[in-house]
């Protein structure tokens, strides 16, 4: 007869006697190791909130797989997964103070990743709606050197210059040093007096801002 046992927050559950089988052992082992991994990530994130750099890098690296699987479930294409991973990691960095160490890190991360995946799909959908698919387009496209193309390129360059000039100072500096002057990170760090980490993050944010301004992403 099944035993009636109180457990958890939902009250009662029926504890059916289970027959031990090799597959159930394997399943229990997998569940147990997933649970341990989840608890490890929670502990790392708690340490990261206290400023532990090693724990922070570990938890971010360990989060990549989970972010990818959440993004895949939301329908993000494989070649876009890295974009969603980067956006999610940047968001995690910005809002890491909202994580409560007494609760599941995985649930917290999955919610952020799902949001970023949806944002990506929305912006991708808008792109797709603007793009025209025509297999003969390449053959019918005018030559590269004609006056219209040159004018368009000049206009695009002007728009890009304008967009770069409107960036916040830190981001503009990163684009100018790393992308336009094509300096190495070390050279740029020496010239600007900023550390390489800050330059990388500023460049990433600048590229995102420029993509939004030039292509209308959000």
């Amino acid at each position, binding site marked *: 007869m099944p035993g009636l046992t109180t457990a958890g927050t939902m009250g009662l559950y029926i504890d059916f006697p289970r027959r031990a089988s090799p597959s159930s052992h394997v399943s229990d082992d997998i569940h147990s190791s997933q649970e341990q991994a989840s608890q490890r990530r929670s502990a790392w994130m708690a340490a*990261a*909130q*206290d*400023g*532990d*750099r*090693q724990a*922070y*890098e570990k938890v*971010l*690296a360990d989060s*990549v797989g989970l972010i990818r699987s959440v993004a895949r479930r939301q329908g993000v294409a494989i070649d876009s997964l*890295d*974009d969603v*991973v*980067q956006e999610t*990691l*940047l*968001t995690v*960095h*910005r*809002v*890491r*103070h*909202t*994580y*409560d*160490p007494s*609760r*599941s890190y995985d*649930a*917290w*991360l*999955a*919610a*952020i990743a799902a*949001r970023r995946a949806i944002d990506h799909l929305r912006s991708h959908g808008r792109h797709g709606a603007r793009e025209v698919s025509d297999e003969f387009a390449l053959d019918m496209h005018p030559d590269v050197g004609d006056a219209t193309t040159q004018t368009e390129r000049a206009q695009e360059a002007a728009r890009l210059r304008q967009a770069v000039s409107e960036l916040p100072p830190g981001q503009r500096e990163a684009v100018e040093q*790393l*992308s336009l002057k094509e300096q190495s990170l070390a050279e740029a760090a020496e010239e600007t007096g900023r*550390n*390489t*980490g*800050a330059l*990388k*993050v500023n*460049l*990433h944010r600048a*590229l995102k801002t*420029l993509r939004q301004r030039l292509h209308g992403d959000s």
Partner: protein
Amino acid sequence: MSEPLPIDSLIKSLGAQAAPVRRLLSPGRRTVGWTMAVLTIAAYLLWRHGMGNMMQRWEIAPLVCCADVSAFFTCIAAGWAAFALSVPGRSNAWVWLPLPTLLVWMAASGWGCLRALIAPNAEAVGFPQSADCLVFIVALSVPLSVLLVLLVRRAYPLRPVQAAIMIGLASASASAALLGIFHPIDSAASDLAMHAIAVLIVIGVNAAMGGRLLQPR
């Protein structure tokens, strides 16, 4: 233009910025702070107007007492729901937390409205005074909503419109409960209808504007 940075490189650069952060207080503790803010305003109004008027109203019409108390608990529950909904990973079911007290508040106010219609000997409140109630609820809801939006923005609301509706409900119900401290002895149907309109205005404006203010960055 450069390609996006590799993930390993991004992790390293984020790791280099691993400064200690001040953890967000739990939704429960933040709700205590919100309740204290409302109680402070209540204490000021009680000091200014005294308890006599409110106690007399409650004695004459116990349902008014029920409506005022349930409005106060709705403000606490809706505030708690707004704080919980603003933390990633929390259940969407928090949105239902204020429903029981909201239903009691609506039922008590609705019955008071009906009573006012069928008992014309009750002390009637004219339209100008009803308009005063509307102005009070809307005007007090503005700073309370701003306070809640600021508190909720410190978190990361992934469901901004739902959080904004909860903020609207919390601030409107707090204002309605506080109004009970110095409201005229009994209410006409038009007066109670005006309260309902004021609450709907506050919730509607919050849903329209708060949703944008709370959009995840």
